């Protein structure tokens, strides 16, 4: 039984300029203890997907149009406030990109840290504080017993993110959702944070959804990867498989545009064109205008299909076996 099973999730934003379909029929599942990476750029829907699960979308202008998200028998999208309250913050925790705005600058760390404990578990303040100090030590905050009484601004960016992680993990959740938590941090601090989350995950046996735009982070950290584009899943596979046998032109284009993998001296590969306007209906595959393999047939509706063990793709031509993305090709025609 998967820990989390999301089916046909649809979330849109009703704006003055039209209805923006931010998440368009997304389904996926997550097993206990598994690490899933959700990769995409701005507008891909990766964050909105997870915010929808946690019911953190502001309800106007946002609206969860349909779908279900089963967590231990409860549909998160339809749960009552009580049910949601007992899951959110306790069994499912979330950490965000900017630790400064996620922490209340007027409250000491101690108060914010033990708050979830006092709410969800009926333990006394003294016990809660001890657990707080303990978890701060585990996440690597030096001199935890004293620093627990500090305010957020007294910590550096990396430390604040550790505090956020401590807050998320103090209730020993079964699932941690991390929305680009290291994007704003230095590369060396990012490495430390990733190491830390790996360690805590092993100790607690929890599942992790890691949202990022950085394929490099995913390569070293996640067991499975899901690539999103224009509110849909483009490709999904085990990490090694995704990199070794890429099965969607967008995934390949993403890999190719990463500077780290490109030889010096030539111009960097770029994906021509722009992401689509999600307020306009898109008939077929949303990547068509920018895809070097696009044909007329790609304009019909296409869904996610399996092409191997645990490897799904939403590219019609790959599904049909017409295109093999592993072939190194001659200098690609670059659309600008």
């Amino acid at each position, binding site marked *: 039984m998967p820990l989390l099973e999301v089916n046909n999730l649809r979330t849109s934003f009703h704006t003055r300029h039209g209805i923006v379909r931010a998440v368009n029929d997304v389904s996926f599942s997550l097993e206990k203890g598994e690490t899933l990476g959700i990769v995409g*750029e*701005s507008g891909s829907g990766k964050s909105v997907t997870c915010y929808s699960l946690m019911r953190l979308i502001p309800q106007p202008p946002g609206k969860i149009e349909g779908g279900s998200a089963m967590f231990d028998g409860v549909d998160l999208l339809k749960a009552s406030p009580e049910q949601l309250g007992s899951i959110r913050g306790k069994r499912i925790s979330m950490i965000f990109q900017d630790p400064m705005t996620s922490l209340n600058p007027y409250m000491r760390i101690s108060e914010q840290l033990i708050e979830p404990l006092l709410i969800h578990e009926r333990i006394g303040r003294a016990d809660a504080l001890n657990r707080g100090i303990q978890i701060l030590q585990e996440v690597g905050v*030096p001199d935890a017993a004293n620093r627990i009484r500090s305010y957020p601004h007294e910590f*550096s*960016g*990396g*430390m604040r993110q550790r505090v956020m992680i401590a807050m998320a993990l103090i209730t020993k959740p079964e699932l941690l959702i991390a929305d680009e938590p290291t994007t704003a941090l*230095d*590369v*060396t*601090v*990012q*490495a*430390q944070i990733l*190491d830390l989350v790996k360690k805590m995950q092993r100790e607690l046996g929890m599942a992790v959804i890691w949202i990022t*735009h*950085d*394929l*490099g*982070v*995913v*390569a*070293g950290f996640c067991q499975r990867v899901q690539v999103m584009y224009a509110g849909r899943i483009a490709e999904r596979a085990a*990490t*090694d498989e995704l*990199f*070794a046998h890429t099965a969607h032109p967008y995934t390949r*284009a*993403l*890999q190719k*545009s*990463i*500077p*780290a*993998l*490109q030889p*010096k001296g030539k*111009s*960097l*590969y*770029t*994906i021509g064109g*722009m992401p689509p306007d999600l307020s306009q209906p898109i008939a077929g595959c949303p990547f068509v205008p920018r895809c070097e393999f696009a044909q007329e047939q790609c304009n019909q509706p296409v869904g996610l299909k399996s092409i191997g063990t645990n490897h799904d793709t939403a590219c019609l031509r790959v599904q049909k076996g017409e295109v093999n993305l592993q072939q190194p090709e001659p200098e690609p025609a670059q659309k*600008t």
Partner: protein
Amino acid sequence: MSDAFLEIKELKAHFPVERGIVFRHQIGTVKAVDGVTLSLRQGEILGLVGESGCGKSTLGRAVLQLIPPTEGTVILAGRNLTQLKGSELREARADFQMIFQDPYASLNPRMTVFDTLAEAIRAHKEIPGNELPLRVSRLMEKVGLSPRFVKKYPHEFSGGQRQRIAIARALAVEPKLIVADEPVSALDVSIQAQIINLLAKLSREMQLTLIFISHDLSVVKHISERIAVMYLGKIVELGPAAKVFERPLHPYSKALVSAVPIPDPVREKKRERIILSGDPPSPINPPSGCPFHPRCPYAIADCARIVPKLENFDPERQGACIRMREINRVS
């Protein structure tokens, strides 16, 4: 080097830290830039990397005289910028420009693209009004923007497009030097590539000297000829980009390179990781001796006493570490 186009000599930018409401007194100094010396050829692209707080942004601003340097000189095409003041400085600014990190905050939200670019074009030159539309259009096309967007406002553009507008604005005054302060950090990966390509192309075509500041080593490696690594206000390594990236000399550079995630699971799992302990130190209270020694896996007792100078390792490369040769012995 007498053929240096841009010469930065022992540049320092120190900021006093003050306490007290009634009697303000100085209790310390933030040595954001602490003695940087660099020389660039005309048309060279130098990558400047380091983490938050290392002083790279401050260095960029100090070179452009947006922050008055505390000590040191900056000489561009034979002209000493640090001695310029007032309207002399203001007029000289046509020669050196900046591109900022946040493409939204660096454009006036109430001015159209036309307004922004026309203002830049006319900043130092008298241009008759009827010539402006053509010049603005040309500038937009140069950075890859369609002139049909000329009447639009910044918020109507994506991040990458806004950055192009910012680049166009910097080019409008026909500068000789551009400092780009993390110009692609706020953009998506696929857009980063477009902007990097654009900057490289413009630099080639216009013989523009470019200082490219970033915390992302892989981006910098691609576009730069040389890379300078900064730590706590000083340059700790300087050399050709590929070599600094593939065989870093300084322990900090090694850690930096090893921390960059490689989007290839096979290589990522195999490689040796150096995870630094602790936080980057604050520039108010730098450690004694080598500023990196508290976090350095190669530190010895002397490292706490001696402040290493930037020395030649070979004709092309320099490093600031007393154990540089030992650590990098070719085995």
